[in-house]
């Protein structure tokens, strides 16, 4: 204790060096992640921005897809997003609520949870195959927005369930007990106390799952996506174009790959913008809905 504080022992010097070294490495790695992200984004933006204009966004592909725009693909992707949300949100939210709030914490819930986790590990192309065999052929929906939405909905179902469960789990039991102690039922407690607290997180998870859906190619390959379809779908039993598949098509096949290249970049950029917009929306909604709700 009577050593001067200004002189360091050998051990202290070494300790500080290791500390500094470790954190420098950690910092470099995390910066490189950001760097890669910026690299990809700026690559697509630089290549694609020149192509995007009003005409590109509002017209159909033309002249063997070497000219024109991506309007039908934008609409198709939006239809698929909406369709899959319509299927997976109600089912997924209900299951999440059931698993966390109602089901007895036992072997059955554990089994369901393991199954949903496995479900989310299945490659999306396998979902595509299943969608084709089951929705397209067996149920006779054909190649259609319906089949595509159902397949995509199945794909993001585990994510929706997990999101809901996690959001509910984050609410301390003291709120449930406080409400039940006042004579409220489980359902009243859920509706009036727990869901309002969990909603911002559930909402964010849901919207992020939409971002995931919007970029999927494999599941719609077999079930919905059209190679080229200049007019818009008229009903849910029609095929549609979709941005990710369109990107694949004009990058790998067609009459003139060189001439199609800029359109491919434009398509990629539009797709990225849609995903970023969705994420932005998630953030705004989260802040807005969660404004008065804080868990202390």
């Amino acid at each position, binding site marked *: 204790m009577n050593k001067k504080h200004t002189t360091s022992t050998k051990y202290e010097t070494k300790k500080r060096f290791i500390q500094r070294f470790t954190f420098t490495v950690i910092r470099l790695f995390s910066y490189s992640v950001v760097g890669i992200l910026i690299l990809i984004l700026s690559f697509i933006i630089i290549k694609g921005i020149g192509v995007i204009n009003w005409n590109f966004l509002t017209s159909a592909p033309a002249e063997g897809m070497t000219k024109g725009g991506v309007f039908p693909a934008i609409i198709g992707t939006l239809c698929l997003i909406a369709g899959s949300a319509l299927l997976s949100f109600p089912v997924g939210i209900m299951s999440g609520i059931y698993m966390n709030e109602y089901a007895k914490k036992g072997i059955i819930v554990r089994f369901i949870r393991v199954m949903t986790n496995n479900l989310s590990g299945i490659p999306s192309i396998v979902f595509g195959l299943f969608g084709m065999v089951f929705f397209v052929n067996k149920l006779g929906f054909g190649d259609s927005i319906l089949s595509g939405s159902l397949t995509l909905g199945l794909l993001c179902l585990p994510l929706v369930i997990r999101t809901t469960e996690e959001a509910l789990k984050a609410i*301390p039991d003291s709120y449930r007990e406080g409400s039940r102690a*006042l004579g*409220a039922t489980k359902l009243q407690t859920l509706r*009036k106390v727990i869901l309002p607290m969990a909603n911002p997180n559930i909402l964010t998870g849901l919207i992020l799952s939409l971002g995931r859906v919007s970029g999927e190619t494999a599941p719609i390959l077999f079930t919905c996506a059209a190679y080229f379809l200049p007019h818009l779908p008229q009903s849910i039993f029609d095929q549609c174009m979709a941005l990710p598949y369109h990107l694949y098509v004009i990058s790998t096949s067609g009459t003139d790959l060189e001439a199609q290249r800029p359109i491919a970049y434009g398509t990629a950029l539009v797709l990225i913008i849609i995903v970023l917009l969705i994420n932005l929306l998630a953030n705004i909604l989260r802040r807005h809905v969660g404004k008065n709700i804080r868990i202390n």
Partner: protein
Amino acid sequence: MNKIEIKDIHFYYGDFHALKNISMNVEPNSVVAFIGPSGCGKTTLLRLINRMNDLIPNTRLSGKILVDGNDIYQKGVAIDRLRKNVGMVFQRPNPFPKSIYENIAYGLRVNGIRNEKFIRQRVEKTLQDAALWEEVKDKLKKSAFELSGGQQQRLCIARAMAISPSVLLMDEPASALDPVATAKIEELVRELKKEYTIVIVTHNMQQAARISDKTAYFYLGEMIEYDKTNIIFTNPAKESTQNYITGRFG
């Protein structure tokens, strides 16, 4: 007639025998304090009186608990009505993420009361009874989270009173509070005795001595001694009680 009668209670969490053969009576309009070292089963017994332990899976109970002469664990008992009659205040303040007003209105609303005028009256009355009215009357629409810990706990007491219970169960209601807020709660408890029967868990010997009429001392799931508070604190029958209240262990 006794307000609460506890008869030959045994309670298990899974295989763990948490309460062993407990019997006691609580008279109406009295304050009973539960004391004893941590883990001796005070909270467990308290939560049996409004059936909050029903929410914990894998538990088992034998014996009887009567409130106002009715067996509350009988088949067909309306649990929501029981909880309306037997209110509870928890150890940590747990107001809902709602306005101060809505926190108190909540218990009324979930019990089917729609009359807004009546609700407003109850909000004012219970906030006054909980000695909180003066501090919050201008910000009833503000979030309850903006209150201090002590104010939040008094809000929770008001919330429990709003549905007009006749019994209040309090689990260390002042343990998270500073001495000033604690004094307010204690004063409140003495005041509330006129209208309610109160069972309160506390780790604070002086507090038990100050506010309760009778005190029960628990140790390892058993009730060692239950008697008038001044007897427990001046001349307990059991050595174990004596050791505990004089701070020789626990």
